[in-house]
């Protein structure tokens, strides 16, 4: 029997213990957060890192709200004011923008890691389904965010959104009126309400159902992710773009990288509802159905060739559509519509061909490999940890401290 430890006399420790004791009366005690004492692969807690970026976006977004005005006359000007005049507004806006990109990227990476490692099994179906809905809502949140800038890029995104909702069967016109309203002033205030309140609220509620009871938060990895967001912001600062003028048609521009795939589908000229709604929905439906189809007890991607090949083929499709979405015919003499048009025959041929080749090739290769290794015993090799000697640890710490001290000094002066 463990001996009861002596109560601490430290006031701060007493306060923390008092809070933990009272938290037992709340739901928070049901969640166990582990701070690992050694390096863990971040792939296992990409969801937590996505949540970290969500918190950063919440904080920076709240600061931006103090200066932003969602009116068609002043939206662009207030963002320009944040960028140029508000103290540290440039930093906050860039962190908000690159944080949103990081959140979408981490959410997609989290989805695929969980998919390939078969985590949707072991009674995790609700976590999986809520995660998928959260992923879609995350993209909508990012989409509604960059529309608020009211520049030519925002106008393009809004026109795509309006035409997509209008193309919906039966309720298209009503849906368009409900979501976008009529006129610039209405869509801006609606998108603002969606971006700062409705969608974040939906995300928070979904997170309650998505979070597992056991969570891992690795402080250095989370700090590194924030560091990468800031470094990316420093290297690729977000631009204001050209203010949208309703009297002049906007120039050629492409949406954010997570929407260029959808944009490529729409630019093929086929029915917008089918290309912009049904085709992306197929991918979501595939992921939704997977936990209910894959009843195999094996978790490793190596033992599930059907689903591994399916997942890799879907990644290939996403990459092709995303890259193609960035392409615009460089000939300036052609009309804008023709420059943006994507020939559907090579586009869809490549999609179908790459999907088939990837799927059949990977599936066949994995089946052959499983058949060949059927009689052999699998040897599990663990990577050897890298350890530094005392001397090199001291040298590294001193050098890094000098760097941080120097950075702090230069920031203050």
């Amino acid at each position, binding site marked *: 029997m463990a001996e009861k430890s002596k109560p601490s006399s430290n006031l701060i420790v007493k306060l923390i213990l008092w809070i933990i004791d009272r938290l037992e009366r709340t739901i928070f005690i049901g969640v166990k957060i582990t701070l690992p004492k050694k390096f863990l692969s971040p792939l296992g807690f990409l969801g937590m890192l996505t949540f970290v970026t969500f918190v950063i976006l919440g904080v920076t977004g709240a600061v931006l709200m103090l200066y932003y005005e969602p009116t068609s006359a002043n939206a662009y000007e207030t963002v320009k004011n944040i960028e140029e005049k508000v103290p540290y507004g440039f*930093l906050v806006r860039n962190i908000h923008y690159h944080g949103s990109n990081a959140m979408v990227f981490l959410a997609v990476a989290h989805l695929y890691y969980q998919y390939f490692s078969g985590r949707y099994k072991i009674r995790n179906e609700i976590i999986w389904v809520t995660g998928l809905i959260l992923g879609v809502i995350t993209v909508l949140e990012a989409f509604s965010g960059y529309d608020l800038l009211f520049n030519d890029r925002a106008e393009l995104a809004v026109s795509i959104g309006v035409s997509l909702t209008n193309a919906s069967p039966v309720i298209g016109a009503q849906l368009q009126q409900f979501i976008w309203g009529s006129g610039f002033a209405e869509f801006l205030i609606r998108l603002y309400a969606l971006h700062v309140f409705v969608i974040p609220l939906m995300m928070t509620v979904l997170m309650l159902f998505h979070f597992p009871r056991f969570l891992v938060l690795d402080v250095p990895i989370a700090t590194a992710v924030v560091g990468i967001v800031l470094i990316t912001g420093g290297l690729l600062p977000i631009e204001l773009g050209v203010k949208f003028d309703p009297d002049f048609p906007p120039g050629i521009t492409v949406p954010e990288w997570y929407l260029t795939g959808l944009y490529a589908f729409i630019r093929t000229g086929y029915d917008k509802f089918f290309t912009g709604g049904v085709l992306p929905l197929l991918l979501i439906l595939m992921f939704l159905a997977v936990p209910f189809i894959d009843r195999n007890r094996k978790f490793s991607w190596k033992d599930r060739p059907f689903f591994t090949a399916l997942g890799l083929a879907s990644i290939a499709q996403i990459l092709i559509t995303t890259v193609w979405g960035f392409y615009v015919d460089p000939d300036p003499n052609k009309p804008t519509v023709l420059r943006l048009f994507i020939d559907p025959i090579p586009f869809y041929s490549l999609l179908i061909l790459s999907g088939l080749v990837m799927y059949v090739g990977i599936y066949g290769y994995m089946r052959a490999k499983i058949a060949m290794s059927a009689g052999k015993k699998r040897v599990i090799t663990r990577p050897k940890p890298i350890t530094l000697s005392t001397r090199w640890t001291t040298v*590294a*710490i001193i050098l890094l401290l000098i*760097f941080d001290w120097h*950075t702090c000094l230069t920031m203050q002066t």
Partner: protein
Amino acid sequence: MSYNANLKNLALFEIGAAMMVFAVLFHIVRAYQPPAPMVAVATAGAVKPPTGPAVQASETK
């Protein structure tokens, strides 16, 4: 300094780099394991080996 010199993106980069350094520092300090203390030969020889089985047969059931 960078921010006031209107090199705002450099300031952002510097803060990011400082955070990366903090992450590396945290990792090194956490991963560091001090070497095991040296044990004198005479002291080590003086330690008596255990005479009986460490675990009783009844405990292993």
